């Protein structure tokens, strides 16, 4: 309360009080002052960028000069539609995103359940940190780690040989990508599922038991429906992050394992064909938009 001493300087103090009162009486003014910088920055830069990206999908690159020509055309989409390679790449990307999401849900659920409803609170806190650290540690590093593990002279084959098994030659295959994607995004699934499970009141489970439900029935009819928003919230991350990735395919995928992201990155970085890249990038955006609408219906946003 040291500032009350400033009452000795009445004019300034009075002015400050008047200003505070004025702001208090006009909450919209205060809200606008707080909101204007982030909203303007986001609206101009982020939404502006998304708009620029979307518009450029309908332009093309002059094949002689390599410059972007501002004439409206559906050519990029036509090329994408007619070339089966792009269908395969999109299918591989979306299929992998789905497979990774399911894998992570299966791996995460029992762990999350153990954290939320079985483990004593100290163990729970320790597991929480053990899940949190990989989530925030560099994902590039974690992909790189698997590149060394799966390599011919890596740790995986060392373990297999030690057990008397032959080498697993899965480096640079779709299997490798599946493992690595499931690995890097797993914490993003564990945390929301844990949060959802932790919020289920214990007496719901007791009530279910009192009404005659056995363990499995309680799980299926009480726990799973209440945990579903958490699973869907986690799946937003696992699905979206896989959909937009190009580092994992580049580092652990083999020849012919390109994702949408790899094509997009090549088109921009090597060919300088932003319009075509933008057209292909609409695929993950549309898929994500549909996914988010479904997720909202399932109550995932409240679980975030």
């Amino acid at each position, binding site marked *: 309360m040291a500032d009350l001493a400033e009452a000795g300087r009445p004019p300034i103090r009075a002015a400050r009080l008047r200003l505070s009162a004025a702001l208090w009486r006009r909450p919209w003014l*205060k809200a606008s002052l707080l909101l204007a910088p982030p909203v303007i920055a986001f609206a101009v830069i982020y939404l502006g960028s998304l708009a620029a990206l979307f518009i450029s999908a309908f332009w093309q690159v002059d094949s002689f000069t390599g410059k972007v020509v501002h004439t409206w055309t559906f050519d990029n989409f036509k090329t994408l539609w007619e070339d089966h390679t792009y269908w395969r790449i999109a299918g591989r990307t979306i299929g992998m995103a789905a497979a990774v999401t399911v894998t992570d849900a299966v791996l995460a659920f029992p762990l999350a359940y153990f954290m939320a409803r079985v483990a004593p609170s100290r163990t729970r806190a320790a597991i929480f940190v053990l899940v*949190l650290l990989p989530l925030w540690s560099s994902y590039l590093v974690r992909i790189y780690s698997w590149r060394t593990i799966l390599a011919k002279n890596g740790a995986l084959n060392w373990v297999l040989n030690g057990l008397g098994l032959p080498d697993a030659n899965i480096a640079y295959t779709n299997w490798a990508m599946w493992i690595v994607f499931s690995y890097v995004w797993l914490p993003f699934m564990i945390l929301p599922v844990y949060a959802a499970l932790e919020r289920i009141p214990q007496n719901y489970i007791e009530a279910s038991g009192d009404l005659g439900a056995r363990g499995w029935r309680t799980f299926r009819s009480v726990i799973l429906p209440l945990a579903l928003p958490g699973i869907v919230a986690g799946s937003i991350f696992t699905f979206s992050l896989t959909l937009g990735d190009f580092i994992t395919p580049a580092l652990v995928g083999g020849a012919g394992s390109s994702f949408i992201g790899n094509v997009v990155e090549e088109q921009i970085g090597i060919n300088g064909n932003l319009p075509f890249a933008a057209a292909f990038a609409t695929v993950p955006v549309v898929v994500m938009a549909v996914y988010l609408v479904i997720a909202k219906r399932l109550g995932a946003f409240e679980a975030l």
Partner: protein
Amino acid sequence: MSRGGRIALGAWAVLVLAFLWIPLLIIMAYAFNDSTIQTWPISGWTLHWFKEAWNDHEVRQSLWLSVKVGLIATGAALVLGSGAALAIARFRFFGRESISFLLLLPLALPGIITGMALNSFYVFGGISLSIWTIVIGHATFCVVVVYNNVLARLRRTSPSLIEASMDLGADGWQTFRFVTWPVLSTALVAGGLLAFALSFDEVIVTTFTAGAQTTLPIFILDNIQRGQQLPIVNAVVFVVIVLTVIPVIISQRLTHESGLLSSR
């Protein structure tokens, strides 16, 4: 639940945690590998590569760029993110839902979309790529992290504290200094640390906004792809892991939250 069920769940938990941690420990061990060839198990141990990495001109330059970008992006995120969180938590107004959705968008959309979108924005705007274009890219997702942390904190504190402060005759500045700030400070520190950790190892958005500049993650990626200077890369990777783990632990201590999801 039955005893057998508990044990099975516990065993599953141990296996999943091992799956999460063994690769991290393996890659950290490679930093001390005295051979230039990466094979497992590691035959001999050395600290040599840390010295080598420290004296490497390229490593130093990219480290410095990453630190600068991280600090500026975090600073911007603290100002923008906390402002937005205060407004969203304290006021009800038209468009409130859309604004909170807009702020979460960089997290929900794949990073490549954010990167490409910014790239096309720069191309059309005739803005040449510089440290500032990287900073803007990083700030878009750092804002979300700070916003989430501050919002979670505000939701757990009663707005009547501020009214009480005003009733007791405090002006806006005093209320901020003695009520709002103590409530928010640890959430801000935690959000800032997480934002820095996120920026420090970001690679996807950076690919599209850096041009010819090399941040530390870009340096790592380039060398892994070309299979060059891997021993130095391993030492750098070790430092990157340690440098991201520390802020996360501190921020977790401060808030007991994941920092990604706002629990209530």
